[in-house]
């Protein structure tokens, strides 16, 4: 029998399917044409944390990438720099994008070099689900998780399961994805591949005279926005010596044009990237409730960027790590411990030589079930040494089942993010490093009320976080920038989620939504800055989705509202609120092979004035057709609780 251990840290998530299948699977209810899964608010890595688990199957056929899936959760803000394969980052609870730890099957994608993780670099064809954990999660996921964690979990290796999908549509966009799993060596082997392309030539309306109000906008077409990406994934899970060996290999590469600002196009700029992740983990049970595990992992990154200077900027990185894990099921719960070490080396233009940084971590945590399992208490403590920086991250979480489907959960924690190598040592152009930086920290508390019953699921929570010593790039002479620990901010807010069960009889309608109210305040700055909102942090955000699934058909409509925010610290330059509508329909064509056809319309109202925070245009109305097939009844889906 496989071990069933909630591991601390990244490894718990890396191979969670193999080790804790029942704990992570939402209870399925198979209906005529649907698999209805409960939207969960519990992540395996932190059962008492504020979490949203997004099942990719809920959005099958809708051609949603990682960022678009993450955007369905409360507490997040997607920073979309151009759309259609361009840079996309995420911030959680007002954090910087650097302060969000992004994991792929539990393996961190944030490199020691620094910078926010580009969500568009993760092939969407791989995604099984995404766990969004809000709040400082350093005690459970390691240093760097200041604002939270986004853990992208790739497809499960389930023997004899397969799926394939082809998509084509506006702006030369097309994608192919396929995966299949077979029994092998007494276990399961999954192979998946995907490819995406777009020419990125979407029409938009441009204001050539931004200071002149009321004058007509000019129709333009985005140029040099083409993007291509391909990825391959292999997962093997086999029994070895009374335990299980899980291995994974992930490879992806892409190229995209860098179109530049609308007012200053850069037709010659481009970026190429590539990433290879390799990991293996072994776990087995022992006497007295003990379980032992260990893993090794490696990562290789490459990045070439041509931006202005005809000579491309190059960056190469490699990392290798190992960890040992110990679990003990005692009477009241499960105690876990993990010791990990990793070395990472980076070469980049602007660095005189390769930089190497060692990281080590020691984590201890418990998951206690008390009062007849009605009360769950999960203390965790982790020590991280990241290069010359070290610190403690702690978290105390708890949940209490009140009965009748009601429960409350709360947690408090502290975490830190060590300065990146780029922030410390990287000189490029007008950006100057600062070797005197210290880690930035976050101290947070949150609580939420959960109602889960036959009608559906609802959560309502509040949180507050105090960020200290945030690393911000400050001008040091004219346009020259240098990072300093100059940021202090307070973030508080309310997060709400709602998902109904299928209702209205044959229509099988559902409704789901996520609402975020975010209060942010600059605690340090000039007289005209202190007390203001943190720039680019909308105070309100709403995601709402309604579906109906009569017979073989499925229909859905979505609304994304992002409230007004400011682009400056004085709060005098507002970015208007935006409301974006998407809609789609699907029909099952051939049940035995679950063949279905999907039509998705993004930006339904064809708003050609949409821009990102920097004023760059975002895609106009986009129509995508997707044909899917698979071994399981994967489409159409709807969401809700049984």
């Amino acid at each position: 029998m496989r071990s069933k251990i909630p591991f601390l840290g990244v490894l718990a998530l890396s191979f969670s399917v193999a080790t804790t299948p029942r704990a992570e699977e939402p209870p399925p209810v198979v209906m005529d044409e649907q698999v209805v899964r409960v939207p969960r608010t519990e992540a395996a890595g932190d059962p008492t944390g504020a979490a949203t688990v997004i099942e990719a199957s809920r959005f099958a056929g809708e051609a949603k990438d990682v960022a678009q899936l993450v955007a369905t959760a409360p507490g997040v803000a997607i920073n979309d720099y151009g759309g259609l394969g361009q840079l996309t980052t995420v911030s959680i609870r007002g954090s910087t994008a650097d302060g969000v730890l992004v994991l792929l099957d539990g393996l961190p994608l944030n490199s020691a070099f620094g910078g926010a993780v580009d969500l568009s670099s993760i092939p969407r064809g791989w995604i099984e689900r995404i766990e969004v954990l809000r709040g400082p999660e350093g005690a459970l996921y390691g240093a760097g998780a200041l604002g939270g964690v986004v853990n992208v979990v790739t497809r499960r290796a389930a023997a004899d399961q397969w799926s394939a999908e082809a998509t084509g549509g506006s702006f030369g966009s097309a994608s192919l994805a396929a995966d299949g799993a077979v029994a092998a060596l007494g276990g399961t082997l999954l192979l998946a591949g995907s490819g995406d392309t777009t020419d990125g030539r979407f029409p938009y309306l441009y204001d050539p005279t931004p200071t002149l109000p009321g004058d007509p906008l000019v129709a333009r077409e985005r140029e040099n926005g083409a993007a291509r990406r391909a990825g391959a994934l292999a997962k093997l899970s086999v029994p070895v010596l009374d335990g299980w060996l899980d291995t994974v290999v992930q490879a992806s590469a892409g190229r995209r044009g860098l179109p530049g600002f609308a007012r200053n196009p850069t037709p010659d700029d481009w970026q190429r990237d590539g990433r290879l992740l390799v990991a293996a983990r072994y776990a087995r049970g022992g006497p007295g409730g003990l379980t032992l595990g260990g893993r090794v992992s490696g990562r290789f990154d490459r990045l070439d960027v041509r931006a202005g200077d005809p000579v491309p900027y190059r960056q190469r990185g490699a990392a290798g790590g190992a960890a040992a894990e110990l679990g003990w099921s005692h009477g009241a719960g499960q105690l876990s411990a993990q010791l990990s070490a990793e070395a990472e080396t980076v070469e980049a233009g602007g660095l005189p030589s390769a930089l190497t940084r060692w990281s080590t971590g020691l984590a201890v945590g418990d998951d206690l079930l008390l009062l007849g399992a009605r009360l769950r208490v999960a203390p965790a403590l982790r020590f991280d040494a990241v290069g010359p920086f070290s610190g403690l991250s702690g978290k105390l979480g708890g949940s209490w089942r009140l009965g009748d489907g009601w429960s409350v959960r709360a947690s408090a924690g502290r975490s830190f993010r060590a300065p990146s190598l780029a922030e410390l040592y990287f000189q490029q152009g007008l950006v100057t490093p600062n070797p005197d930086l210290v880690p930035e920290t976050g101290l947070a508390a949150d609580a939420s009320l959960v109602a889960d019953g036959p009608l559906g699921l609802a959560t309502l929570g509040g949180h507050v976080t105090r960020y200290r010593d945030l690393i911000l790039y400050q001008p040091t002479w004219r346009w020259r920038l240098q990072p300093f620990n100059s940021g202090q901010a307070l973030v508080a807010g309310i997060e709400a989620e709602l998902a109904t069960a299928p209702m209205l009889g044959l229509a099988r309608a559902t409704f789901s939504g996520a609402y975020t109210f975010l209060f942010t305040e600059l605690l340090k700055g000039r007289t005209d800055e202190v007390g203001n909102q943190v720039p680019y942090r909308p105070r309100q955000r709403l995601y709402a989705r309604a579906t109906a699934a009569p017979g073989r058909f499925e229909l859905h409509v979505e609304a994304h509202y992002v409230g007004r925010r400011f682009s400056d610290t004085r709060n005098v330059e507002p970015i208007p609120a935006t409301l974006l509508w998407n809609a789609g329909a699907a029909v099952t064509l051939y049940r035995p092979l679950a063949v279905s056809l999907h039509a998705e319309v993004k930006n339904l109202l064809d708003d050609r004035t949409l821009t990102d925070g920097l004023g760059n245009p975002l895609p106009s109305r986009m129509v995508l057709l997707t044909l899917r097939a698979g071994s399981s009844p994967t489409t159409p889906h709807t969401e809700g609780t049984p």
Partner: protein
Amino acid sequence: MNRSLLVVAALTALTALSGCQKETTCPAGEALCGNACLDLATDSANCGACANACAGGTICKAGACACPTGQSLCGSTCVDLATDPAHCGACANACASGSVCGTSGGATACVLDCPAGTSACGAACVTLASDRLNCGACGKGCVTGESCLAGSCSSLQVACFSVNEVRAVEPLEPTTGAAPRAAGVGPIALTTLGADIWAAASISGSLIRLPVELAVAPTEYLLAGNDFEYIATHAGRVLISNAGAGTVVVVDPATGAVLDEVPVGKSAAENVKGIAFATGPGIELAFVSLYGDSVSGDPTIGQKVAVLNAAGLYTCGQPGGPANCLTALGSIDVSGGADAPGLAFPGRSITVGGKVYVALANLKKGAYGYFTDPAGPGRLAVIDPIDTSVSFFSLSAACGNPGGLAVHGTSLWVACGAGGLAEVDLSGAAPVLVAVHPAAVTSPGNVAFCGDHGFVTDQRSGDVYPFDPVNFAASPAAAIPVCPSSAPPYGYAWAADVACASRP
């Protein structure tokens, strides 16, 4: 009920946790008084300490209240012993009724008539051209931050980029200044029009009107600009180089409203900089420098001076006026003013004697891959507005990377970014380089004159160097710090521009 209580309790706890201390950062050398950062060394209302106001006509110097230069303390009041009939030549030495207090040959006495060259203001004999208590007219006094020059209260206005202020200092005593005034974020260029100083703020993309009355608060017009770089006035309009959008913005100074925004060049990469005008019989032109891209060094971007018809400026925005204030006519290639492998990079410009002079930086790629290093001597592109022909004038190898331009008499003064101050004689048929003078600043940026007093800013500090344009050798040895550094530890100072303003 219990559940509601739980929610309320949780939210209450979260609210309580949100009570965090705030930390206001002030520019270097300034202190927080209430909600404002103030320079306690010079602020007369907060001299040496918050709320310690100077009285009796004293002003704050080096953190202590003292009389303005040329005045003395009699009791608790500052007086001009040279003219004050109640303290004529000495405290409490009052002139009798019917006599006046005058100074002649360095001697002050109560006399029956004012000495030659002075005017009677009551019983005080004053020189209206220079008396700061009676500047140009009896009773018209200059305030702190102003000097009386040629009968006008004049102030030297300095754009302090990093602290978002415009500071006014006295041209005759630049160490004395008025309370700084806020000017958007990143004030980078100044001009004057009527009774106002106008500042273009680069980062906030805003336009700030600062009345010449130094105590009057400024007005900021948020224009949604993208990287303002230069500001000029013509035909009663304010024009701004909106480099981030590749346009020139025309503003009605009466309302702050944008009248027109005119794209110049192919894209924003052309990098709009200086603006100059030429008027004459049949000529009403604007010349806009297109600097180019100092990152890519693409020679096809910029390296031109765009020519626009400016006839519409006078009446655009008015009923029956033209739809556009400016219309593009073409461009003048100035790439010939560069030495390979450098590029010309035309910047600031000025019109003198019917010719348009444009500073050509002539730069090649330097540190970090940007075009920062002189490729040869700085040059001037000399444009004849009649036929838009262009010739190039060398400022010599001693004047690299020229920037700001200003005229004093028949001399054109050029700030050499690589060091020095070039003086060019324009009195003849062709310009003649008189000298490249040493300036006690690292990287001269922009130049202005208040009467016969010249000033040049430093691009690498907040210093302003006062110089004598008539006898440069008599110039001071050192520059004067005007703009403080932004908040430490990352603070820096940059005196971005300078202009002279006179109060009518």
